């Protein structure tokens, strides 16, 4: 895989005590493309995700993020909130983590915390109502409104996030991540629990985000979504990478089918032979 890589993970290893969740995993994601990370349950996808987004500190290996301006950031050395703040990596969660008691609009405003914090002179300018901050807040509300319109939730802007329908909450969480203006958007099973129509809308949203210039890394079980939108797919099983390539290549790879069916490779190949 050549071209312009935004994220390169090299020999990533993550151990929890004696258990090796991820072993010498390498992957790279291209700029302004959608890279999908798939694999059976328990393959270690979310662990890789948590290492990239700073929720786990990797036991070994390197994670490099290169920005448009040529800066390269070692993500494994940053921790916690700094990955989102400095490296501009945003993420969503497998189980939705919105702020349920705050409105949809407020959720998107919280996402712009760091920009607004600077504009409010770390609260002091904002407290006295300086025009600088008022302009910044207006701009932030504008950005949030744009995103609410894009995810089709503009009329629910003032409703509590916890009152939204499940599919709406999923889209709102993506919009919230996008309001941090990230370089890389990491989505952990965004289509989980969505119906066919909602999945299709989600695919459309993700493609539009990619076309606007944000790179996406995606974990997903819904193969219709993965196959439709991914530019590149990485397959994991038991903590190691077993295959990667374009959606077509991965779909026809006997190793991938074996991993999903839980059988060994020859059997899977035989199944495929008899099928075709």
């Amino acid at each position, binding site marked *: 895989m050549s071209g312009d890589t935004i994220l390169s993970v090299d020999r990533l290893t993550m151990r929890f005590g004696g258990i090796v969740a991820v072993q010498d995993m390498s992957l790279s994601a291209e700029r302004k493309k959608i890279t999908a990370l798939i694999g059976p349950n328990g393959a270690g996808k979310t662990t890789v995700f948590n290492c990239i987004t700073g929720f786990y500190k990797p036991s070994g290996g390197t994670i490099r993020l290169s920005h448009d301006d040529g800066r390269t950031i070692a993500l494994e050395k940053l921790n916690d909130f700094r990955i989102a703040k400095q490296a501009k990596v945003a993420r969503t969660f497998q189980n939705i*983590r919105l702020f349920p008691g705050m409105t949809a609009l*407020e959720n998107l405003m919280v996402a712009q*915390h760091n920009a607004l914090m600077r504009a409010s002179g770390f609260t002091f300018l*904002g407290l006295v109502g300086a025009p600088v901050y008022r302009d910044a807040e207006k701009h932030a*509300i504008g950005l949030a409104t744009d995103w609410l319109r894009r995810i089709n939730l503009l009329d629910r802007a003032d409703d509590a996030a916890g009152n939204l329908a499940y599919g709406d909450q999923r889209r709102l969480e993506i919009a919230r991540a996008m309001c941090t203006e990230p370089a890389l958007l990491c989505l952990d099973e965004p289509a989980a629990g969505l119906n066919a129509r909602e999945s299709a809308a989600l695919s459309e949203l993700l493609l539009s985000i990619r076309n606007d210039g944000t790179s996406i890394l995606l974990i997903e079980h819904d193969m219709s979504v993965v196959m439709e939108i991914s530019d590149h797919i990485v397959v994991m099983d038991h903590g190691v990478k077993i295959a990667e390539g374009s959606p077509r290549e991965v779909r026809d790879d006997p190793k991938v089918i074996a991993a999903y069916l839980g059988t060994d490779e020859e059997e899977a190949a035989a199944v495929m032979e008899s099928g075709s």
Partner: protein
Amino acid sequence: MTAPSTNTAKKTATGIPALLKTALVNAVIALVLFSLMVGIRTEAGSDGQLTYWTRFGEVAALVAAVFGGSIVIELLRQWIGPTGVEKLVPPVVQSGMSFVGRYLAPALLFVTLLVPVIFYDQRYILDLGILVLTYVMLGWGLNVVVGLAGLLDLGYVAFYAVGAYSYALLATNFGWSFWVCLPLAGILAAFWGVLLGFPVLRLRGDYLAIVTLAFGEIIRLVIINWQELTGGPNGVSSIPRPSFFGIPLDNSDNGLAAKLGIEYSPTHRIVFLFYLILALALLTNWVTIRLRRLPIGRAWEALREDEVACRALGINTTTTKLTAFATGAMFGGFAGAFFATRQGFISPESFTFQESALVLAIVVLGGMGSQLGVALAALAMIGGFELFRSLETYRMLVFGMAMVLIMIWRPRGLIGHRAPTVYLTKAQAISSDLVKEGHG
């Protein structure tokens, strides 16, 4: 949500046998409890020996009361319907409520402003008003930490003490005026707030509560034992009274009364103190309301809702928590400085855990995060406590029962819903079911 409550409704409405069974169980529990607590009375006799006598008549009366009371409560419950269910409120009542809601706060403020005018001759009411306002201010200060940031702080009185001792010591040792010491007291309290914040950053829930509780006790013990500085249990006395921006409020020729050419009255000082604490409380309120609408305030509330999501959005949770502690502590420090100047004498006895518990109760009763709720709760708690004074021994009992009833009817406080900090078309109150209480 509705499914389980309809189930309970069916269960409670099963008729007389179930009713009697519940009442019987309650009566048996009462019998076991009261037979020892009331039934046998022990006392030291004249020679120091143990004497005891039995009071089975009283026990029987109490058990009968519990039996009868259980039946009445069960019947009431069936009549009212299951608790925790959203009831349909008629639109007339609803619009009336929203009308009251809109004008309650301005009306309260107006009445408060007029209190010294109406009750000018009644020293008792003025003193009570000052006390209530002090707790309103403390409640609003703690509301930042507990209500907005969702960090349970059981040692809030520590900052109150730091503020009080800061003013008392600076004023008695260096002769600095109240208006110089007030900001210093706030800054010192905020500094201690940050100091407390650092070790407890990683703690949540019960663990956080215990450490803050210990912090409150530590401050009190340091004050008791550091005799050279604080005077130990004897406290600090003859703390200067506040001046009207440099003009003393006394009977001298330089006093305010003499300068204005009116007759001196000790009430002048009380009225001045009343407006002083009102101004301080309103400052707390104004700053809190503004902070809520700033990114830092939204980050506090987001922290209460979901800390992990905050981190994923690039919010520095460490500084966010520390600023919450510091802001809350600063208001506590202001209130402490006011307390010291009002009393003229402070000792460690004023800063016990009971004060922390009282302020926390005000915040919880008012509805965490609600400014108006906290003010109403302070009025109910402090004012109500005085109202029941004539009941003497039974005061605490009546007061406790009133609190239990309020918690049954309004489990999320007097004002449980949350007002959004920003809106596009219309600000809608957010139901308390959705708002998180925070994890610690």
